């Protein structure tokens, strides 16, 4: 048992050693943390605007029937069949959420709740009926661990080791995400803010919603597979939400969310090193701390500013801040 709750802070061990003695490990963990946070953060900005911020959490539950069916069909707990089952379940999840949302008066949050709890329940029932005698849960057959990234197989290109496979894969997903964002920026923007306007401009908001969320489900499941669940859920929400406290403009929000992602990755890694704790946990804690700081000290909408200038500002303005956000 630890004698003190917090271990003594040792500057050399916390900040110098990771970048000297263990450089090769540190760099890949931090890069991976940044890539996951930045990719999830970019997509997260749009997800938050559509009030679907909890879709990551939802998928982490609803993939249970997917991996169970994949196991029953293949009789194997290898990563590939588990991954295919999980992606299929993820796609079904977001498709159902969209279908309920678009064809009824149910709001996205309730639709998410309906879909993931029923799918998760189906998974629990499937396991207890058919697969009770094997150890089958997402935590041990699917979710990866960011701390092990440096130990993964290296991708070799032209005789040079360029990096661990999951990092290269995540970088590719990041580039695809940015490419899609650039290609469909206008459509994403309009459908996120004003479905009516989108329709009048000839953009089918329904189709974009499906497209965005399907891509999202693939990103989420493959991130689960490489870094585990908590980091992904946190990074879908924190970078975007924190940035939105600082600016009303979408491009600036995207920019800031990428900046925050780098901050989470670096500071989170060092926090975890200091405490000898889970790295994904450290990065998520830093994200929570940065959010809290911004929430209190944000120059225009921070709690502190509101308190100081209580008589001058309209306290209710934060509620409408999402609607105020513009593309200019």
């Amino acid at each position, binding site marked *: 048992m630890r004698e003190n709750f917090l271990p003594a802070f040792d500057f050399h061990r916390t900040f110098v050693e990771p970048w000297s003695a263990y450089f*090769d490990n540190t760099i890949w963990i931090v890069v991976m943390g940044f890539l996951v946070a930045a990719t999830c953060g970019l997509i997260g900005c749009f997800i938050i605007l559509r009030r679907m911020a909890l879709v990551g959490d939802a998928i982490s539950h609803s993939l249970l029937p997917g991996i169970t069916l994949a196991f029953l069909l293949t009789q194997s707990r290898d990563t590939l069949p588990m991954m295919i089952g999980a992606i299929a379940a993820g796609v079904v999840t977001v498709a159902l959420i969209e279908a309920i949302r678009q064809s009824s008066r149910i709001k996205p949050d309730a639709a998410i709740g309906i879909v993931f709890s029923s799918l998760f329940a189906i998974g629990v029932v499937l396991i207890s009926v058919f697969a009770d005698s094997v150890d089958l849960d997402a935590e041990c057959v699917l979710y990866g661990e960011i701390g092990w990234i440096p130990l993964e197989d290296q991708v070799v290109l032209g005789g040079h080791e360029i990096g661990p496979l999951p990092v290269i894969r995540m970088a590719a997903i990041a580039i695809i995400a940015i490419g899609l964002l650039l290609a469909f920026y206008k459509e994403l923007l309009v459908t996120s803010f004003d479905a009516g306007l989108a329709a009048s401009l000839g953009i089918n908001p329904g189709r974009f919603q499906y497209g965005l969320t399907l891509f999202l489900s693939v990103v989420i499941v493959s991130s689960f597979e490489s870094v585990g669940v908590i980091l992904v859920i946190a990074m879908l929400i924190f970078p975007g939400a924190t940035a939105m406290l600082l600016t009303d403009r979408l491009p600036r929000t995207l920019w800031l969310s990428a900046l925050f992602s780098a901050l989470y990755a670096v500071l989170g890694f060092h926090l975890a090193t200091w405490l000898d704790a889970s790295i994904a946990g450290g990065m998520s804690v830093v994200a929570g701390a940065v959010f809290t700081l911004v929430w209190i000290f944000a120059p225009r909408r921070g709690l502190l500013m509101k308190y100081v200038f209580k008589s001058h500002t309209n306290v209710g303005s934060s509620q409408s801040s999402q609607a105020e956000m513009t593309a200019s």
Partner: protein
Amino acid sequence: MRPLLDRFHFLILALLSFLGLTLMAGCGSQTPEESQGLKVAATTTMVADLAAAVLGEYGEVHGLMGPGVDPHLYKATAGDVNTLQSADLILYNGLHLEGRMADLLVRLGRRGKPVYAVTEGVPESELLEPEEFAGHYDPHVWFDPILWSYCVDTVVEALSEVDPMRTTVFKKRGDSLKSEYEALREWGHSYVSQIPRENRILVTSHDAYNYFGKAFGFQVVGVQGISTMSEAGLADIVKIVEYIKERNIKAIFVESSVSPATIQRISKDSGAKIGGELFSDAMGMKGHREAGPDGLSFDVGTYEGMFKHNLVTIVEALK
């Protein structure tokens, strides 16, 4: 639209330059300083204890999972990757106890790191597998000291491979460890004889004690399935309560790494008392001594102590 796109170019540029910088930086590598003796990394507390018993003073064993940690809930800490990387030898339980981490270790092994699953020496005929899923073996072999002896051979072989100079020493220690385990099983058999054969029914949280049951003549009833994730169904609970009443079972048991709620509920409904806490997927705190009846004293942070704790707890409650 123009300035907007420019902003995005900046974003991409920033992303790419960050990547580029880190990739370049990644090429320059340094190795941590050398230290004396072998560095062995082990996953569970049982594997770490076994490795330390054979290795002794010739090196250091780092256990990744601490006492009381359910292998399913284990999260790697920032230091663990360095421990694995700088280890001269990695030992893990195998049989899917470590889940996906085992895949990673196998890949590390393929790249030339000495990596061994300690259970690989256990003959397949001795392993238990569920009827409907062939090949998905029960990993809890350490509850039968004889099966665990097979693991000693694997550890001796693994250590001899990384330190061939000390093969004879490791072999000798392995042999004495095996006879210790044999003695432990003998002791277990005679100790268990205090419980009449028809009362040897072990009701616990999850299916961890099948090898134990087979070795010591217990019928084992796990309330939940083998996964610590699945929950007991209502019908299962009712069935077990009925069973306990029918067989007049005196006590049922909770496990150190599984929530006791369901067992407490069953205890209340059936009238069987809770006989105590058994170690399942992890051992106790190192140096934590416990006293049993007849002047027994053992350290629950060791394999032998863990085993004795379980046996004493079961026998005291059921005899």
